């Protein structure tokens, strides 16, 4: 059973290992999705963490519909954090240390009696500068692969217009789910049980995004297993990009490909190429 993936239209129903890229025009749209996401988190006894560029007082107001925010903060059920207190905004993040931090925070939540961590991050300010994009993409991919293993769910908000559409599309592609505002390519490359899963559809016009996603994800990944169970369509352009990628990885210990759908076997046979 592959993790939930594809296009979504609500912050609820993502599950305890959900990870969504949420594009928005107005900040209120992300807050609405966060309230849906947090309502699920509360129901499944996850610790909530809200991270944005707004001052904490403003964050409290935005999250007021959840109930007594003050009491939730006091008892440790909700953490409110400002981005500037955690990150040197405008500079690239270190994906490895960030993921270590998320993992430790999830383990701490479990130690405190919660089922895991439910993290909503309004990340726009982290990716305003072009120099931050590549490291941030790696962070998202690495965090996704970690999240699926440790019981962390995350809703990542990005304001449309603050970064190029292509970067927002790349971010959407390396989350298992994305809303329509963020989604550019009809595929997702995400972590699942120590493997990378490629789901959705790939054609000539999404192949460049696939190449970028594979490069980011496999740079970030310790694993080089690729699962194609959720792949619904791929044309010869996408297939050849995938084959070229696995050939490149073959030079560094190889990449095992699992659950090849019939269309991939068909293309292997007709083009006389192996994955």
């Amino acid at each position, binding site marked *: 059973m592959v993790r939930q993936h594809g296009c979504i239209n609500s912050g609820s129903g993502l599950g305890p290992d959900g990870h969504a890229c949420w594009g928005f025009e107005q900040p209120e749209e992300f807050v609405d999705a966060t309230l849906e996401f947090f309502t699920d988190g509360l129901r499944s006894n996850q610790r909530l963490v809200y991270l944005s560029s707004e001052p904490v007082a403003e964050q409290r107001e935005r999250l007021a519909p959840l109930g007594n925010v003050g009491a939730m903060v006091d008892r440790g059920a909700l953490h409110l954090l400002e981005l500037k207190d955690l990150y040197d905004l405008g500079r690239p993040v270190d994906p490895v240390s960030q993921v270590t931090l998320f993992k430790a925070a999830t383990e701490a939540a479990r130690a405190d009696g919660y089922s895991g961590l439910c993290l909503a991050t309004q990340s726009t300010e982290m990716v305003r500068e072009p120099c931050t994009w590549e490291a941030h993409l790696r962070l998202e991919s690495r965090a996704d692969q970690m999240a699926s293993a440790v019981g962390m769910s995350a809703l990542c908000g990005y304001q449309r217009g603050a970064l190029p559409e292509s970067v927002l599309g790349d971010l959407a592609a390396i989350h298992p789910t994305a809303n329509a505002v963020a989604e550019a390519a009809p595929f997702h490359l995400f972590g699942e049980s120590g493997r990378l899963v490629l789901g959705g559809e790939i*054609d000539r*016009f999404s192949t460049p995004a696939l190449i970028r996603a594979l490069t980011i994800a496999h740079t970030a990944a310790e694993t080089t297993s690729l699962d194609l169970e959720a792949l619904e*369509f791929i*044309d010869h*352009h996408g297939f050849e990009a995938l084959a070229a990628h696995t050939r490149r990885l073959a030079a560094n210990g190889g990449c095992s490909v699992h659950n090849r759908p019939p269309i991939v076997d068909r293309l292997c046979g007709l*083009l006389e*190429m192996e994955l």
Partner: protein
Amino acid sequence: MKPQAAQARGFRHEAFFYSGDEEFLAGTVPYLEEGICAGETVLVVLPERRMELVREALGATSNEVEFWQMGDVGRNPARLIPAWRDFLRTCDLQRGVRGLGEPVSPDRSAAEVEECELHERLFNLAFAKERTLTVMCPYDTSGLGDEALMGAERSHPVCAGPHGRSASPRYSLDSPLAGELAEPGRPAVTLNFDKSDLAMVRHLVGQCARFAGLDPRSNEDLVLAVCEVATNSIQHGGGKGELHIWDEDGELICAVRDSGRIDDPLVGRERPRPEQERGRGLWLANQLCDLVQVRSGSCGTDVRLRMRFDG
């Protein structure tokens, strides 16, 4: 006896008109035996029943002949040139190669007969430079219509019958992809598409294929083939195209039209080399569909991808 004439013969491609099994065997068996005696590599590509007739008539020497069933390799006649090309790569060309191929048979549909004629015309282009290839193509005059028989004359430089052979006055290699395909005979689902609609193209084809009752594998093959051809329209045919889908006489037909023009008449009939950047889309479509028709000229390109309901 090993005649050295093979090197001098060049490429020969002739139609052989026959009526009934007796004339068929009288014309084809001596032709094959001559090749076997000369030490040539001999390939026979025939419908199953005719293949068995030839095998029986040749007796023990049939072991020296390679037999392919036309229904396997040439169901879509556009797969025949790459199959021949692959076969020739395995042959010692110095010895000479002799073929017997009957792509046009009375059980073919009108569209298939039309494509068989195009295949026969393109065969001349594809193998024009071969120095030691002789191919005879039998045509059943008692079962085929006049148009199919005239097609044989248009596509073969030499025509033979029980009473001798002569150059064909109708033979022509001009603009093989020119001409127009018939308009849909039934109401069609239509979609104008560009780059942003490619997923919709796939989903629409998949839905129509399910509705028509195509099996899942044929459905997936047709979706892939149409996507490849529609991608060609977007990339090389003016950035956009039209898709029309209808069913007719037990086939689901997808027509992809655009304003581009195809210059290479052998497009989709040469196995793509790994280093080649283009030329995979129509080649794949030919491998995936029961029949693919391509017509191209100054008014644009029309590609028909056909899949039978019965698989």
